[in-house]
C-alpha cells in the first residue's frame, strides 16, 4: 500500500520529534536549573530535578532510535553525516555522558545525604551543550555547505559551523527551554506554577523570535532550504507552528495549563515538521536524496515490520510509565534502606 521509503522517512522524523518532545524537555529542565532565579529558585530546581528522575533514561532512548533508524534505513546517509559532523556529534556525546552521569551521581549523592555542587554544575552545562550541538548537527543537513565528491563527503569546520547552524543550535536550545516549563505547569501548583508559567511564556516568545529570525538567515545562508520552506507546501507547517505558538501563549496567559502543554508540544512538532518538509526529498540538501541514501527494499520492509511489533510493547509501557509518575513529582526517590 504505502511506499516503504516514505514510511521509513516518517519513522525517522517521528523519532526526531519524539526525542525533541521528551528528551528535549529533560534538557530544558537542565537549562532552567541553570537559569532559575527569584525567591523560589531552589524549589524550581528541585521540582525540575525530581520530575526528570524517573523518565530521562527512557526519553533518551529516542535518540538511539533516531541513530538506529538512520543506519538501518539510510546507511549511506548515516555514514556521510557521521563523517562530516564528527565534531558537533562528539561534543554532543560528551554532553550526553556528563549530563547522565552528573544526574545519576547527584541523585545518588542526595540519597546518601550529601549535596554535590560539582554534579549540579556539570548537569547544567551539559544540558546546554548537548541541545546546542545537536541542533547544529541537525541543521547542518539543510545548510547546503556539505558537499559530496565521488560519494565521499568533504570535511571542514564550515560544513557544520556557519550562521545557519548556529541559529539551528540556538533554536534547539529554545525548543528545550520552552517545553520543560510548559510541561511543569501541569505538574505543580501555587506560586511554583506561576513561575513556570512565566518561564514558559518567556521561552515561547524567545522561540518565536528565533525561528522568525532563522528565515532571513536561511535566505542568505541556506538559500536552497529557504526557497523550499517558503515558496512551497512546507510553508503550511510554518503557519501552523506560528498559530500553535500564539495559541499556547494565550492559553498560558489564561492559565489553561493542560491545553497549553499540548499547544507547546504542537508548536515544536510543527516547527520540526516544517524543517523536515523543507529538507525533503533530501537527507543532505542538494547532495544526497533520501532515496539514494536508503537501504535496499528488503531491509526497509524488515525494519517497518519490526516497528509496529515493537510499538505494541513500547506504547502501553510508555503510557504506564507516564501515568504512574504523573502529577506532583516525588521529593526524592523512595527509601532504599541504608547501606548494608
Amino acid at each position, binding site marked *: 500500500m504505502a511506499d516503504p521509503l516514505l514510511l521509513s522517512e516518517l519513522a525517522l522524523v517521528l523519532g526526531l520529534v519524539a526525542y525533541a518532545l521528551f528528551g528535549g524537555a529533560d534538557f530544558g529542565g537542565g537549562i532552567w536549573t541553570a537559569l532559575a532565579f527569584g525567591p523560589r529558585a531552589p524549589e524550581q530546581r528541585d521540582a525540575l530535578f525530581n520530575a526528570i528522575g*524517573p*523518565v530521562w*533514561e*527512557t526519553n*533518551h*532512548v529516542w535518540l*538511539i*532510535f533516531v*541513530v*538506529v*533508524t538512520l*543506519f*538501518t534505513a539510510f*546507511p*549511506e546517509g548515516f*555514514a556521510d553525516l*557521521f*563523517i562530516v559532523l*564528527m565534531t558537533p*556529534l*562528539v561534543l554532543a*556525546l*560528551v554532553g*550526553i*555522558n*556528563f*549530563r*547522565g*552521569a552528573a*544526574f545519576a*551521581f547527584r*541523585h*545518588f549523592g542526595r*540519597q*546518601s*545525604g*550529601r549535596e554535590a555542587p560539582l554534579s549540579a554544575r556539570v548537569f547544567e552545562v551539559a544540558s546546554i551543550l548537548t541541545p546546542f550541538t545537536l541542533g547544529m548537527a541537525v541543521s547542518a543537513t539543510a545548510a547546503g555547505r556539505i558537499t559530496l565528491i565521488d560519494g565521499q563527503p568533504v*570535511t571542514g569546520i564550515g560544513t557544520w559551523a556557519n550562521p545557519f547552524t548556529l541559529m539551528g543550535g540556538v533554536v534547539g536550545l529554545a525548543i528545550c527551554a520552552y517545553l520543560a516549563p510548559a510541561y511543569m505547569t501541569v505538574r505543580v501548583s501555587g506560586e511554583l506554577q506561576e513561575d513556570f508559567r512565566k518561564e514558559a511564556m518567556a521561552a515561547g516568545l524567545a522561540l518565536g523570535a528565533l525561528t522568525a529570525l532563522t528565515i532571513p538567515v536561511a535566505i542568505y545562508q541556506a538559500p536552497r532550504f529557504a526557497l523550499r520552506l517558503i515558496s512551497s507546501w512546507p510553508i503550511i507547517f510554518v503557519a501552523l507552528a506560528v498559530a500553535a505558538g500564539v495559541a499556547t501563549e494565550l492559553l498560558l496567559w489564561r492559565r489553561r495549563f493542560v491545553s497549553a502543554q499540548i499547544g507547546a508540544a504542537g508548536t515544536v512538532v510543527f516547527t520540526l515538521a516544517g524543517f523536515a518538509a523543507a529538507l525533503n526529498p533530501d537527507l543532505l540538501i542538494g547532495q544526497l536524496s533520501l532515496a539514494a541514501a536508503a*537501504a535496499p527494499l*528488503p*531491509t526497509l520492509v*524488515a525494519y517497518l515490520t*519490526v*516497528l509496529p511489533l*515493537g510499538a505494541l*510493547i513500547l506504547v502501553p*509501557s510508555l503510557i*504506564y*510509565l507516564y501515568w*504512574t*509518575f504523573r502529577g506532583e513529582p*516525588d521529593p526524592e*526517590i*523512595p*527509601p*532504599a*534502606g*541504608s*547501606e*548494608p
Partner: protein
Amino acid sequence: MDNLLAARALMGLSLAFHILYATIGIGLPLLLMIAEGLALKTGDDSWHVIARRWIRPAGVLFAIGAVSGTILSFELGLLWPEFMAFSGPLIGLAFSMEGFAFFTEAIFLALYIYGERRLSRRALFLCTIPLTVAAALSAVFVISANGWMNTPTGFRLVDGVVAEVRPLEAFANPAWLHEAVHGTLAAYVATGFAMSGFYAATLLRGQATPYTKKALTLCLAVATVFLPFMLISGDWAASFVARHQKAKFAAMEAHFQSSAGAPLVIGGWPDPETGTVAYAIKIPKLLSVLADKDPDFVVKGLNAFPAEDRPDPRLVHPFFDLMVGSFLLMSVASGWFWWLRWRQGEVTVERKPLFLLLLASPFGMIALESGWMVTEFGRQPWVVQGYLRTTQGVTPHGGIFLVFTTFLLVYLALTVGILRLLLYPGQKGGAGKGSEVHHG
C-alpha cells in the same frame, strides 16, 4: 598513533567500558526479580529490603550503561562509517530490536526504582519480570550483530556492492545462537560473582548479619546455577569456531602448524615469528579431540592462512586462557563455599573460603571481557569476516587521536566519580534517613 589504531583503541575502550555496565544491567534485574518474588512468596520482607538496597548503586550503574551505550551507537558512525554503510542494511534489524528491548528495560527499571510510593508490592514485582526479560533480550539481539560480523550471511556481493539482501537470514546468522547464549548467561555469572564478592568482603570485616548471609546466598546461587552452562555453551561455541572460523580457532589455541593429533596448548606466549609457544603446557592430541572428537583429526594451523589474513595469536590465546582460567577459579571458589554451606548448614564465616570468594569475584567480569577480546581480536584483520577488512571500515575523517583522548578523559572522569560514590557512600545523614523510612 595513526587514525586506524586510534579508532580501534577508542572502539575497544568504549566497548570494554560499556560491557561492565551492560553486564550488570542484565544480571541485576534477575536478582531483583528473584528477591522480590521470594519476598512475596515467603512473606519474608527481608528479601524486599535486600532488593531495595541494590537500587541506589543500580541507578547509577544503569545510567552509565545507557549513556556509554549511546557513545557506542554514535561511534559506529563516527569511527566506522564505511563499515556501517556496508553492514547497516544487514545488522540494522538486530539493533532496531535491541532498541525496543532497551526501551522496555529503561521503562520498567524506572517504574521499579521510583515506583515504591506509587505502586503496590505486587506491581513492583511484576515490573521486574519485563525488566529481566527485556534486559536479556537486548543482549540476545545485539549479539546477533556481532555474530553476523563473524559469520556474515543474508546477502550476495556483486561487484563489491551488497545485493540480494535478506535481513532475517542475516539476523539469524550461524554464530548468533551460541554467542547469544554464551554471552547472555555470562552476564548472570559475572554479576552474581561481583556482588558475592561485596558480601564476602562484608563478612570478612566481621559483619556477619543474617542480611548479609542471605544476600550472599542469593547472589552466589544465581552465579553458581549458570556456571555449568558456561562450560556447556563455551564448548558449543568453541566447536562451532573450530568448524566455521578456523583462523580464529588456531589463534585461540596458539596452533601454528596444521597437524593431525594436535596438542592442546595451555598458557605460554605465542611467537608468530618462530611459530612456537614459549613456556606452554601441551597435552597431546587433546586439541584434535576437542575440535572433532577424533584424536587424529587434522586441525588447521595459522600457517594454513595467508599472512595478511591471520589474526595475531598474542592478542587471542592469552585472553582465551584467561577466560577458561577464570571459569576454573570461580568453580573452585563457589564449590568450596557450597560444600561448607552443606556441611555447616549455614553460610560459612571461615576466612579462607570467603577470601577465595572475594578473590574470585571480579573474574566473571574478567572472563566476559576476555571472551569478547577473543572473538574480536580473533576475527582480525576482518571487520566483516571474509568481506570487509578493518582498514576498509574506518572513517576518512582525520584527528581520531584527539577524539580518543577526549573519550579517554570522559571515561576516567566517570570512573573516578563512580568509585567515589560506591566506595565512600557518605553515611552522614543517609543511613538514618534510610532506616527510618524502611518500607515507605
